[in-house]
C-alpha cells in the first residue's frame, strides 16, 4: 500500500486525540462528553443488541425509501428529460418541491398516511424522488448530441436511440442523483424516527438516549448514523464504478 492511502487516518487519529485531551483537561463537563473508550464500549455493546436493531430498522427504511424513489423517479425523469419542452414546463414545480424541506411535509404525510412505519418511508421517498428525478432528467437532456446523431445515422429508431444511447448517457448523472437521494432519505428517516411516534430506528435511539441522559449511548448512535451515511455513499460509488465504468472519462 502506498503511504498516501493512510493519509485519511491522520484526521481520525487527530480527532480522537483532541477528544482525549478535551476529556482529560475537562474542557467540557464529563457528563456531556464521555471518553472515547466509554463511547466505543457503548457502541460495541449496543451494536450487538438494541443499537444494532435500531441500525437495521433505519437501514431498512432508507432502503425502501430510496428504492421507491428510484422506481418512480428514474422512468419519470427519462420521460421528462426526453423532451426538453416537457421538462421546462414542469421544472418550476420540481424545483419548488425540491427546495421545500421534506421535514415540513411531515404533518401532511401524517394526515394522509397516519403514524405508521410507511409514513416515514414515504416522506423520505418523496424527498429522494425529487432529487433523483431532477438528476435523471438533466442526464437525459444533456446527452451528447453527437452521440444521438451517430446512433440515428447508423439507422437506430427513435426508441433505440432512447434505449441504446440516452439511458446510458444519463447513467453517470443518475448515480449522482441516487447518491444524493440516499443521503437525503437517510436524513429524513432519522428525523422522522425522532419525531413521528417511533419506537425504533437510529433517530429514536439518539432521541431516547438524550432523554435518558445516557451520553455514551447517544454518541454511539450518532456515530452509527454517521457510519451508515458514509457507508451508503461508498456503496453507491462502488456500484457506479462497477456499472458506469466510463463515468468521467
Amino acid at each position, binding site marked *: 500500500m502506498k503511504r498516501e492511502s493512510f493519509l485519511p487516518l491522520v484526521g481520525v487519529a487527530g480527532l480522537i486525540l483532541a477528544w482525549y485531551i478535551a476529556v482529560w483537561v475537562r474542557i467540557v463537563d464529563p457528563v456531556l462528553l464521555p471518553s472515547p473508550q466509554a463511547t466505543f464500549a457503548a457502541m460495541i455493546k449496543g451494536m450487538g443488541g438494541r443499537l444494532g436493531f435500531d441500525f437495521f430498522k433505519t437501514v431498512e427504511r432508507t432502503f425502501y425509501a430510496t428504492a421507491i424513489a428510484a422506481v418512480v423517479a428514474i422512468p419519470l425523469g427519462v420521460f421528462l428529460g426526453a423532451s426538453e419542452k416537457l421538462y421546462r414546463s414542469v421544472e418550476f414545480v420540481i424545483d419548488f418541491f425540491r427546495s421545500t424541506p421534506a421535514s415540513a411535509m411531515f404533518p401532511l404525510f401524517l394526515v394522509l398516511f397516519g403514524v405508521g412505519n410507511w409514513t416515514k418511508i414515504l416522506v423520505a421517498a418523496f424527498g429522494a424522488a425529487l432529487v433523483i428525478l431532477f438528476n435523471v432528467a438533466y442526464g437525459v437532456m444533456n446527452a*451528447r448530441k*453527437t*452521440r444521438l*446523431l*451517430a*446512433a*440515428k*445515422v*447508423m*439507422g*437506430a*429508431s427513435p426508441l*433505440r436511440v432512447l434505449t*441504446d*444511447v440516452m439511458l*446510458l448517457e444519463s*447513467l453517470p448523472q443518475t448515480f449522482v442523483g441516487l447518491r444524493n437521494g440516499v443521503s437525503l432519505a437517510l436524513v429524513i428517516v432519522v428525523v422522522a424516527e425522532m419525531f413521528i411516534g417511533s419506537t425504533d430506528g437510529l433517530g429514536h435511539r439518539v432521541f431516547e438516549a438524550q432523554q435518558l441522559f445516557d451520553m455514551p449511548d447517544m454518541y454511539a448512535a450518532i456515530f452509527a448514523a454517521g457510519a451508515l451515511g458514509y457507508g451508503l455513499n461508498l456503496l453507491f460509488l462502488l456500484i457506479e464504478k462497477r456499472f*458506469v*465504468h*466510463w463515468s468521467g*472519462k
Partner: protein
Amino acid sequence: MKSVASEKAGAPAIRREAEPPPHITIRGLSKQFNGAVVYDKFDLDIPRGKFVSVFGPNGCGKSTLINMIAGLIPVDAGEILFAGKTLSQIKFGYVFQNYREALFPWLRAIDNIEYPLRHMNLPKAERRARVERLVAHLGVKIDLQRYPYEMSGGQQQLISIMRALVVEPEVLFLDEPFSALDYEMTLFMREQLQRIFQETGTTMVLVSHDLEEAVYLADRVLLLSRRPARIADYAWYEAPRPRTDATLSDPAFVQLKAHCLEIFQREVRKG
C-alpha cells in the same frame, strides 16, 4: 496519367475526357439558418468511387453540405439522389470530427464497430463475422476488447471509421475527421484512410480545413465560396495512388495546391 484539370477557364487545366457517371446528384439545394442563406439553388455531382474533398472559407457551409447529404440536417428545398435512389434506400457511413463524443464509451471497441449491424437484423454470428472480416481486411492491429477511453485519439478515430465501414457503405462521409488529432497521428491516419479508400473503392466525401490534406487525399477538390455557397472550383487531381510524402513535392500537387489557395484567398477577401 498525371494531370490537373479544372472546370474553370484560367486554371492550370487539362479538361478531362470521359467523366464517370455521377454517384450523388444534388439539384436545387437551398438552406437557410436563421435567415442567413447558406445554400441557394445549389447543384453538384459527386463521382462514383472517387474521393472528393470539400474545402472553403470558415462558415461557408462545408459541414452543412455533407450533413444535408447524409440526412443529419433537413434541407429547405432541393433533391439529393444516389444513382437515382434516396438516402433511406442506400447504406452509408458517417465519421464525426469528435470521435470522443461519437463513440459509445459503454461499449468495447469491437461492439462499437458492430453497433450499426444491430439495426440490420443480422444474427449475432454474422455480425461478428463481418466485423472480423473488416478487421482482417484492413489489417488493424488494435486490441478491440478495450473501451474507447482506453485508446489514443487516432485509435478511437480508426474505430469510428471502421464502425462506418462495417455496413459496407456506398458512400462514406468524413467531417474533419483528423482535426482533433496531433500532427503525427494525422499523417498516420491519412495513410490509413487512403489505404481504406484504395481497398474498398467506396465513394468518399471529406470535409477538411487543411488544404494540403484535402488535395493529398482527393481525386477531386471542391472549393466553396463564401455564403451563399457556390462552387468556386471543382478541380481534378489524378496523381497515382498510393500517394506518399514524395507526392507533397510533386509539381502537379504543388501547382494545384497553389491554385486552390489562390481561389480560397480570393473568396476570403470577398467577405
